[in-house]
Structures are given as structure tokens and as C-alpha cells.
């Protein structure tokens, strides 16, 4: 949220703070409470949206989750004809909304992959889950961002409209991605979840990445790693496109 020049501008900061506080209440943000309250370590207990890898034993904190991104399967680089399932059983979660996450190493899918995905969505819904949408986790080489945008547009067409489409994003997409392709992405996906971590800790220098992220003009969430260091960049909460956090849970 820019600070506007003009009459009464001295009050603007105040109203921005108020808005910030409201956003805090809404999203249970870490680091809320002003510039002084800085969170050092990401404690899942402070959050309500999580990402669960297939091999991570679901921790008790999930019992009160509101949204969970569940890794379901992957499309491997050397086989574009199928989804390799990573989660041995269909979930049956009644207290949280679920995102079905596919990790994909390539996007030139044969038709069977989309079919398998739709089938899996159907199974998840049939098991009584509230399926919010599909998240594609693609390790996109940036030079192909245009193709990724086209792929997502195609997938969007095939997904029943009740499902949202989310993608995980690399922070430097925004820094150096082709603006036209990024804009096309914006017209297709409902959100981007940006990962800010490496290994078990937060990327050093993430503030610089966040600067370019704000230019995406696309609703985004910030993915944090459990136990990673996190101090929200000062402007983050003011960005109207910022939709809160997703904590990536680690194995015990």
C-alpha cells in the first residue's frame, strides 16, 4: 500500500497501521504487532495453513489447520504419461480445506495425466474432503515461463471451475521473468505460493527477493519452512496482494 502524498498525509501512516492490524487479525500473521515484534523462528503453532510433503508424518498441529496443501503425486521428468502417486491413500479430512498438490518436472503432459488428476480430485471429494483446488509445484526453468503460462491456461480450462488453481513460485520469477509471461500467469492462477527457504532455513537475503515479488501483481502467499528464520520484510503486510503464509512442515 503506497503512502499517498497530499493533504493529511501525516495521518496516512496511521491508517496504514490500522489496516495492517486488521490484516493481522484476519490472517494471524507472524510478525504482527508492529515493527518491534519480530518473529525469529517459524513455529507452526502460530499459523493455520500448512504444506505437507508425502513423507512427513502429519503432526498434531494439523488438527486445527484451516488449509492444508497435501502433496499427492508427481510427474517425472522422464515420463510425461502418468502421475506417480506419493500419498498411499486418499485423505479424509473434515476440518480443513485441502489443496491437491502435484509436483511436476515437465508440463508437456499426455492426456492421461490430466485424466488421472481429475480422477484423483474426484476420489478426494468422494471421500468427503473439502477440496479447494489444485496446486502445481513446477520447477520451471524461467526461459520457459511463457510455456508454463500456456500450460496453466490449458489446465485451468480442463479443471472444473469450482477448483482454484495455485502454483508454487520461485522468488526470482518476479525478478527476471518475462513480464508478458508473468502477466499471462496472473490471468490464469488464483495464487502463487512463494518459497523462501533453502534446506531447513530461510533464504538469506530474502528481502531483496520480496521486493521484486511485490511487483508480480498477483495474489500470493509466502511459504515458510518450519523452524526457519523469518522476519517479515517491512512492507510485506502492506502489500494488498499478500495473502498470508503457508508453513512447510518438516519431518520430526
Amino acid at each position, binding site marked *: 500500500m*503506497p503512502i499517498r502524498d497530499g493533504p493529511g498525509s501525516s495521518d496516512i501512516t496511521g491508517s496504514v497501521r490500522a489496516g495492517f492490524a486488521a490484516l493481522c487479525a484476519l490472517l494471524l500473521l507472524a510478525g504482527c504487532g508492529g515493527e518491534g515484534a519480530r518473529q525469529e523462528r517459524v513455529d507452526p503453532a502460530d499459523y493455520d495453513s500448512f504444506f505437507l*510433503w508425502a*513423507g512427513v508424518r502429519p503432526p498434531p498441529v494439523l488438527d486445527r489447520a484451516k488449509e492444508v496443501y497435501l502433496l499427492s503425486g508427481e510427474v*517425472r521428468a522422464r515420463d510425461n504419461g502418468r502421475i506417480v*502417486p506419493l500419498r498411499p491413500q486418499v485423505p479424509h479430512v473434515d476440518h480443513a480445506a485441502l489443496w491437491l498438490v502435484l509436483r511436476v518436472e515437465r508440463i508437456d503432459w499426455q492426456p492421461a495425466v490430466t485424466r488421472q488428476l481429475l480422477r484423483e480430485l474426484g476420489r478426494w471429494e468422494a471421500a468427503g474432503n473439502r477440496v479447494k483446488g489444485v496446486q502445481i509445484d513446477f520447477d520451471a526453468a*524461467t526461459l520457459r515461463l511463457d510455456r508454463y503460462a500456456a500450460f496453466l491456461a490449458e489446465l485451468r480450462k480442463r479443471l472444473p471451475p469450482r477448483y482454484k488453481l495455485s502454483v508454487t513460485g520461485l522468488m526470482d520469477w518476479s525478478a527476471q521473468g518475462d513480464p508478458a509471461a508473468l502477466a499471462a500467469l496472473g490471468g490464469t492462477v488464483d495464487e502463487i505460493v512463494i518459497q523462501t527457504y533453502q534446506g531447513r532455513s530461510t533464504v538469506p537475503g530474502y528481502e531483496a527477493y520480496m*521486493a521484486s515479488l*511485490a511487483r508480480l501483481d498477483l495474489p500470493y502467499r509466502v511459504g515458510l519452512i518450519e523452524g526457519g528464520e523469518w522476519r517479515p520484510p517491512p*512492507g510485506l503486510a502492506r502489500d494488498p496482494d499478500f495473502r498470508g503464509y503457508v508453513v512447510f512442515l518438516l519431518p520430526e
Partner: protein
Amino acid sequence: MRRRIRIAVALGALGAALALSGRAGASSDFSCYPEWSLDGADFDCGSSIVLSPGNDTRVNLALLLRDRAGLASRPGTYPTLEWDFSYARNFFDWNLFRETLYPAESVPDNDYYGSRCVSLAGGDAAFAAAVSASGALSAREKEQLSGARGQLKPVCENFGQERWYSQDQAKAPAVAPSWPADVASSAGREFLAYLVSAAAFYGEDWGGARAGFSSLLSAKDPWLKETARYMLARVDLNAAQAASFDEWGFFTGTDATDTTAAASAARALADYLKAYPKGLYAGSAAGLQRRAQWLRGDLSGLAKAYEGLFGRIEPGSAEEALLIDEVDNKLLLAKGAEGAISTPLLLATYDLMRMRGGANLDHGQTPIGEAELKGQARLFSGNKPLHDFLLANHAFYVAGKAQGVLALIPDGSSAARYSALEFSRQMLRGQALAALGDPGEEKFWLGLVHGATGIYQRPSVELGLALHYEKAGQLARVFAPGSPIEDTMIRKILLQKSAGADILRAQARNAERPAPERDLALFTLLHKELTRGRYADFLADVKLVPAGADAQSGLWQLVGSEQVPVGLFTNGTWSEAYACPALGGTVAALARNPQDVKGRLCLGEFYRLNGFDGFYEYDPAEQKGGLGSVANLFPGTAIPRGSFYPAIAADPAAAREDRAYALYRAVMCYAPAGINSCGGDEVDEAGRKAWFQTLKRQYADTRWARELRYYW
């Protein structure tokens, strides 16, 4: 460029619970940027061709199994990497290794891959064939039964609906098939009973399925009779594990297994194989026997079964790769495996895992001590080199005694080719020489490189040699004519991270090297000269940029990119609203006076307009000791454009218009979210506000004051 964004979580733990997912194992859910060293102490996302504690257990087991047929010295074909370029030719994960070295398994197109319903389509065909072959069914019955089989599909499609809580028998299945009522012949009723039982099986009604298939054990039709017996075992297996999944679809372990059902499944499978040793489902039943053993926690039986299979499965076959996955997630990562494994290849794999750093012992293993390892000599009788290799790993990685390696592994660096084990032994010897600072290290690597004929072997030796040269202050040897260090990633890392101007300049012109490597050398040279204020050198070296050089390919992943945009320096974007000459003119002005105001503003424009904000050189070696982390022969540190603006704004000698533009740019560094994208010292919000107000008040008549409406 994508470095640092997503690096693998130490994935050891992730493998633990993937018991049923077959191929998921301990491989990556993430991009991987391995540390470029030979250190194999800890498990991370990158395995290497050298057997080590840190390798994925599946890689270690595969290397040992492939040695049964002498496969390690074959040259092979390296995979074409894309997003996973950072593995290069020194690292891989299990999936990549498998796809590179094993033939693809043939997987039929199946919407239910990975679930019980995977057998639906095959069952359709087999059922149709059996109905068709039956002499006891009327034509009408055949038609009715074939049609009725179609009712299984909705059961699979709606699998789970209202039926997840299978203990809640009061709830009717959401999809209630309606079976034909007028199939009257006894054969017809048997076939129909089969369908009803199959629907119960796919719909998770274990009791119904069990009763139904049991009633068919004495069926007249031979297909029904055999299939029912096999299906009974599958029902029991599914029932046995049903309680082991939590609400997230996670397999919580065999503790929750219904052991009565598992025992019953084991009996049913044995019965089936006894009655039908070469039956339709004999292969499947043998595999399911292992699953029954696993569900019952009979890990010793499982280990014996695997050892038996090692003797029968063809080395390097797709079946071997599948088996390795199974061994890994059913045995090696199972709690209690420690006491169940006593055969050499499995034990070696397991022992290596137990030598990992404590934080990586995620599967209930305990660290292995030297005494225990020595006590295993009997189990390795006939394979002393393997046992000695394990002892040497313990000495090197656990005890920290590199000298112990030299005592256990004699110099064998002059062989013409190597098995995976012998190559690993020699590599460990080389690592020990390096750790000890032994004067013979270079000669050792130079000898070993000749026999490193197998895929991934030579780059490992080259890495050892490159690490040696960098540490010894002899980086030029890496790039000298005739250097055995040919791997382009190793050279690129050193060019980007370590090389000084002389090496970069020479490599930019080295016609014997591939274009991406040459261009990366030139790009790095020019970028470092520019950012470190070596403007005169830049002006001389920019002449090396060929006419028509690429300026479009972006600054992504330069170290892994086929196109390096060296043309940005000759044919980039020079100016937007603030007028600037071509970069050459700007740099010429800075060469005369590094504080030239317009020069600095225009250099800032060059960075800003060509994507250099947020440009990071690929840095694979953040951790101490990795390739590229020792030498830094290019002098100086980068000067960020963020440092230009406050200095110019405060410079009374600068033109008024330029001071205004500097303030404008300083404020814009924090657009649109208060986060600095220009580098340099952070300025707090009060400071940004002051810039803004200064611009508005003191330079109100300038274009830049008029255009700026916000600060952030």
C-alpha cells in the same frame, strides 16, 4: 540463479514413511543444489557414484548390485538435465540415477495407478475371457455377466465415499450395484457371486469380500476357483493395512496393522502358491508374500527373501530397480531392520547409513561403532575389500582418522577400470590424502582419472583434482592446456566463483571449450569489472563480445544456461526517461572519473533496465570447503547502485537535475512495498520519507518531483 531458492530438505527422514508409495523413497520433492565437494558424510539431496554414508541408500545398494555384473566401468550416456541442471555430472538423486542407468519399466496406462483399483481394467479383461470360455453359461447369461462387470467401475470411481469409516457398517455404500436377478444356472450364479465379491473388495467391505470369495473356493469354473483363492489373500492384505492410514492418507506404520489379517494373508498366499505354483497369479503372489511378511513385522524373513531375489534378478534390469525401491522402504528404512540384516550387500548398505551424522539417523538406527563393525568380519567373509571399505569409511567419517583409510586401502590408482566398490575405495583414499595434505595427492588423482571409465566416475576424480588445485593456490592448473579437468560445470563454478581476470580473459577466448562456458567466462569478467569499478579493464575487454551476441536470454541460471547474454554489455537497454549514452560511453566517463555523476546514474540505469537487480551469481558452495569457496582471485567487492543515489543527492557539485533524479531513484528503490531492490545500505522509512519530502520541496519544479507521487 535459482540457487538458494529451494534446496532440498535433508530428505533422509522423508523416505521413512513412504512405505506404500513405492517409488517415492528418499528422493527429492525439491530442487537440489549439492555442495560441490567429495564429502559424503551426510545425507542430502545429491548422491554420487562413490559409495558413501551420505548417498541415498538405494544408490548404494544399486552400485553394489550392479557390481555383480561388472556394470560400473561402462561409459553410459549422461542424462539431459533441465531444471535439475545443478546435479551436472557429479551428482544425482535416485530417480535420476535410475532413469539414467536402468531401463524404463513398462507401465500400462491406468487411471488407478497406485491404488487397489489398479487391477480393475486387467480384471475386466480376464473376467470377460473367463465368461467367454465357460461352456456352462448360456449366451444370455454371458451377456448379462459381461454387462454386470461394468458396475465395478463406479465403485472404484467413488471409492471412499461414505465408506471410509469402514467400521460404520450402518452406512450403505454410496454406489449400490444392482445385479441381474435372473441369472439362474449354477455357473452363472458363481460368476455373479464373484462380481459381488469383487465389488465388496474394491468398495472396502472386507467382510463381504472375504465371505464371497471363500464361497467360490470350490467353484466349478477353474478360473473362478483359482482367482477367488488369490483374491482372498488380497482381501486379507488390504484388511491388514486398512487401519494403518491416518486422515491425511499417511501410512502410520505397521504398528497399527491387523496382524491376524496379515497372518491370514500369509497363509492364503502360501495356499495359493501350493495349489498353483505356476498359476495365473504366481508372480504377484510371491511379491504379496513379501508384503505379508512386512506387515507382520517379519523383517528377517523379508531380508532373506531379498537376498534370494538378488541371486535371481538380472543385474541392471528394470526389475532390479523396482526391487531396490522395495528393499529400501520395506526393509532398510523400517524400524527394527538393524537386527534383521545379516547378508553382505544389505548389511554394507545399512552400515553405511548408520555412519551418517546423528541428525540423519531418522529411521530408528543407532550409530555403528568400530567394534561392532569389526565384529561383522565373519558376515563379510569372502568380501574383505567391502568390509575394509566399511572400516575405512568409519575411520574417515566417524572417527575422523584419515590415516586409517590409507592403512586399509592400498593405492590402486593405476588400474585400467574399476568396479563401483573399488572406485569408491580409491576415491576415499584420495579424500584421505587430501585431508592429510599428503604431497602425493595430485599424482594420485592424475593416475586415477585414466581408469575412471564408468559413467559419473571421471567427473568425481576431476572434482577431487579441482578441489586440490583450488586449495593449493594453483587454480591456473585447472585451466592450463592439457588439464584433465574437462567437466564443464566444475570449470564454470570456478570461473564464476574463484577465477581472477587473467583466467577469465583466457577462457573467454578458449576456442576448445563449449560456447556456454566461454561466454560465462566473458560475462563474469565483464560483470565483475563493471561492478567492482574496474572501468578501464572493462573498456578493453568488452571488445571480446562478438557482434550479434545474445542479449535476450535473461540472467537465469547462467551456470546451467545454454545461452549467456554477453550481448547485454554491447547491445543492452541504455536509458529510459533519464537520457544515457551507450554503456561504453558511460564506462568511459567513469574510467576518467569513477565519481562521475552522470556515469554513476547511467550505470545504475544499465543495471536496472537489464535485470541486474536481484541478479546473483550462482553460488553452489556456500558451505566451507566446497568447490569455488576457497579462492577468490578477482579483487574488490561489488558496488551496488543503491549506494549511488544518496551520495549524488547529497553532492552539492552535482547538477540540480541529477540530484533530483538521484532522489527519485532512491525512493523508487523501495517501490512498491518498502523493500530495497537496489542493494546497498538499508534506509528506514523515515529516511525514505525525507528523500521524498526533499524532492518535493527543494526540487518541486523538476520532472522527477512531479512524477513521483508516493514513497514506500
